[in-house]
């Protein structure tokens, strides 16, 4: 057999101390659709970044049609005919469709004259070829998300790429556009293009792909022809390991319900018909894949995107949450996902970060009391074992895990009834992770109701008393803590559990 279109051998990539890829082998043949599957953080995105030249690998070799590529940069990748469709379209919103296509596809020099008539005709032809009903003169900003995605697809088609990567291309598409996309994939395969297809939707993978490679913890755990494997087998490959980590056990039984949701939904954020209850002293895990609607649900509960329908009850009282101030005053605390952006103010001193949400209570007489502030900050620094130079050290001087603790301290200082944690251990080292787990469990044991959103499967299974699994904007299943990871993954993938 001739050499494969693309071959990766023992590719290694480290980000700081995190080993994202630990020696991955991957083959792509001409005229095949090769699915890439794995949990969040298994290394799929990293692998793609290496193939598109966005990141250079720390080790291993990349071969394209038998030729060893010494240095793969984005420009080299482009000349080699590697193209990528990302989850989110990356077009210029102020330019028209034809202009966008021209920008991407014209490899002419900056001062060359542009033949707009030809470009327009070409754009029309491309759009017709994928069956999209979009005017080439439409400004991209006025196109819907799916339409923009179709323009992206047209771009890739027009570039004549030999290797096409599709990263969750159907995430923003409706049924109709999905079928257009599938037709394009078939078309590409027929023309001998190699397609790397990433998706969480198993039915899609079974319908489209020829082979599948499963990544787990930065390693390839096997490449299989799809006719040789079934859904259960794939899920087993993805999850694989047993839950080896030890998680702190609950010391008290959950008490009365604190939060109860009944048919809650919000049209703007795509969350619909969510119902569940969280009790005092209980950790309610929210599992699911990225984009399943977990953060969106948290934002509803914190009044950031108010619910359109349904009932939210906190400690028996029905709430209309339309601003974070209201949520805070009712005793809801939310530690957001991206702490670098919305958790800790890096320029402000630690103590100021901690007291940020409780000015009214701590300083009832308007004047700031620096002594009281410092005492409070020291209490939390001790209670959460925050490693810092002192309460006046700026937030930016702390490590990731300690920043997370500061964000946590700010919200604990509001003395909440309900604590929502969104990916509290993301990007945190192992030691700090265990510490944060212990803190969360201790808070629950002290009677706090906790909602724990986590994409880390062992974490959400090991920490939670009950696990709500979300998929496509709604709650799919509520499973007991310590459930079989395969059951959780099956629910998250939306297959029959």
């Amino acid at each position, binding site marked *: 057999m001739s050499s494969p279109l693309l071959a990766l051998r023992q590719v290694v990539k480290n980000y700081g101390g995190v080993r994202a890829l630990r020696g991955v082998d991957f083959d792509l043949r001409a005229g095949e659709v090769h699915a890439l599957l794995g949990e969040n953080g298994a290394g799929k995105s990293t692998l793609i970044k290496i193939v598109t030249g966005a990141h250079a690998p720390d080790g291993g070799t990349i071969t394209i049609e038998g030729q060893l590529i010494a240095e793969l940069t984005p420009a080299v990748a482009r000349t080699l005919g590697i193209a990528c469709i990302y989850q989110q379209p990356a077009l210029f919103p102020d330019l028209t469709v034809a202009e966008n296509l021209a920008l991407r596809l014209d490899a002419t020099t900056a001062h060359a004259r542009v033949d707009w008539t030809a470009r327009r005709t070409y754009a029309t032809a491309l759009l017709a070829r994928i069956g999209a009903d979009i005017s080439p003169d439409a400004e991209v900003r006025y196109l819907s998300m799916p339409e923009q995605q179709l323009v992206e697809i047209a771009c890739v088609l027009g570039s004549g790429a030999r290797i096409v990567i599709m990263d969750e291309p159907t995430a923003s598409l409706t049924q109709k556009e999905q079928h257009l996309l599938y037709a394009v994939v078939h078309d590409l395969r027929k023309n001998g293009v190699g397609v790397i297809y990433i998706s969480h939707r198993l039915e899609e993978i079974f319908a489209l792909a020829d082979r599948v490679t499963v990544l787990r913890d930065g390693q390839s755990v096997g490449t299989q022809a799809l006719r040789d494997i079934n859904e259960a087998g794939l899920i087993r490959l993805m999850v694989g390991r047993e839950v080896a980590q030890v998680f702190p056990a609950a010391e008290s039984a959950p008490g009365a319900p604190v939060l109860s949701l009944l048919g809650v939904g919000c049209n703007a954020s795509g969350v619909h018909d969510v119902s569940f209850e969280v009790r005092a002293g209980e950790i309610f895990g929210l599992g699911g894949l990225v984009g399943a609607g977990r953060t969106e649900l948290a934002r509803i509960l*914190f009044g*950031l995107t108010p619910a359109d329908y349904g009932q939210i009850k906190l400690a028996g009282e029905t709430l209309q949450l339309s601003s*974070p*101030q209201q949520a*805070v005053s009712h005793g809801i605390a*939310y530690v*957001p996902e991206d702490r670098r*952006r*919305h*958790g*800790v*103010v*890096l*320029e*402000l001193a630690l103590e*100021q970060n901690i007291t*940020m*949400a409780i*000015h*009214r209570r701590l*300083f009832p007489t*308007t*004047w*700031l009391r620096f002594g009281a502030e410092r005492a409070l900050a020291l209490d939390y620094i001790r209670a959460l074992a925050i490693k810092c130079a002192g309460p006046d050290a700026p937030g*930016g001087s702390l490590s990731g895990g300690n920043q997370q603790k500061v964000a946590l301290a*700010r919200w604990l200082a509001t003395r909440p009834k309900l604590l929502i944690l969104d990916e509290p251990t993301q990007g945190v080292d192992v030691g700090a992770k265990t510490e944060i787990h212990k803190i969360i469990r201790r808070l629950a044991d002290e009677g706090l109701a906790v909602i724990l959103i986590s994409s880390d499967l062992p974490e959400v299974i090991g920490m939670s008393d009950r696990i709500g699994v979300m998929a496509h904007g709604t709650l799919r299943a509520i499973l007991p803590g310590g459930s079989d990871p395969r059951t959780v993954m099956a629910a998250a993938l939306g297959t029959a559990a």
Partner: protein
Amino acid sequence: MKRYFRELSVLGALLAVLLGLALLAPAFFSPQPLLTLITREAPTLVVACGMACVIITRQIDISVGSIFSVCSVCAGLLAARGWPLALVLPASVGLGALFGAFNGFLVAVLRLPSIVVTLATMVTLRQGLNLVRQGEFVNLPDHVQWFGLSQTAGQLVLVSTALGLLVAQALAMRHIAAGRYIYAVGTDAETARLAGIRPQLVTLLVFVFIGALTGLGAMMNLAQSPQVQPLTGNGLELKVIAAVVVGGVAISGGRGNLWGAFAGLLLLACVSPALTHLHVEAYWEKAVHGAIILLAVIADGLRSRQSNR
């Protein structure tokens, strides 16, 4: 010490200039001219205090010069009609606050970029004033100049008002929660919002505040001359922004304080008399100002690059 390095370095530069003047042109320090110089800068200082707040909130207001003119002319007309100063003063402050509220509404509620909003206000007010007044001067009744006091007493009143405001506001910025909200909103509006602070309200109030201070500054300027000329306040916005930036308030918001802005203002204000005393042509003033601003901005750039590492 390290934390206030930027402010202290401006203070150092100011002291160096003063020391140089003391050695080369001791005449600079004769009391009456010096008091006149400081009095002339008092209205600017008041507006600069407001500008520091605006810039710390990561906004900008370039309409202060025009608001200053309109307030001056209106206050002058009211005084000329025989209104007592006790009514003219609040009228001027209120008018300024009203313009500020207009800017603030567009920026905070409609979320328009402040540079465009205040550019529009700046041009509209300036042209509107020209249209209505046709460049006419307003002659003030005698009791307005120096508030009817002697010149020295009037000057002392103005200077102490400005300094009093500076101290009060500097203390408030540090010791009142509202002051901290300003810094929080300027560094990270979204985090502030998640922490229950209302960034829109803070932004609106900051604009109202600078408007009111501009109205007050206009009154303080009015009291220094027998008439109001309609071009008064021209270029004030640049002077004030320059002083604040030289004083170490980060144009990207969230950093800086009033003491730095004060030192920056004095440093820039010293340039013109220093040049006169050193017998350098006055044309060089703007060039020296430009050099000082450039130096300050470069220093900030180097600092932030260092801290990003």
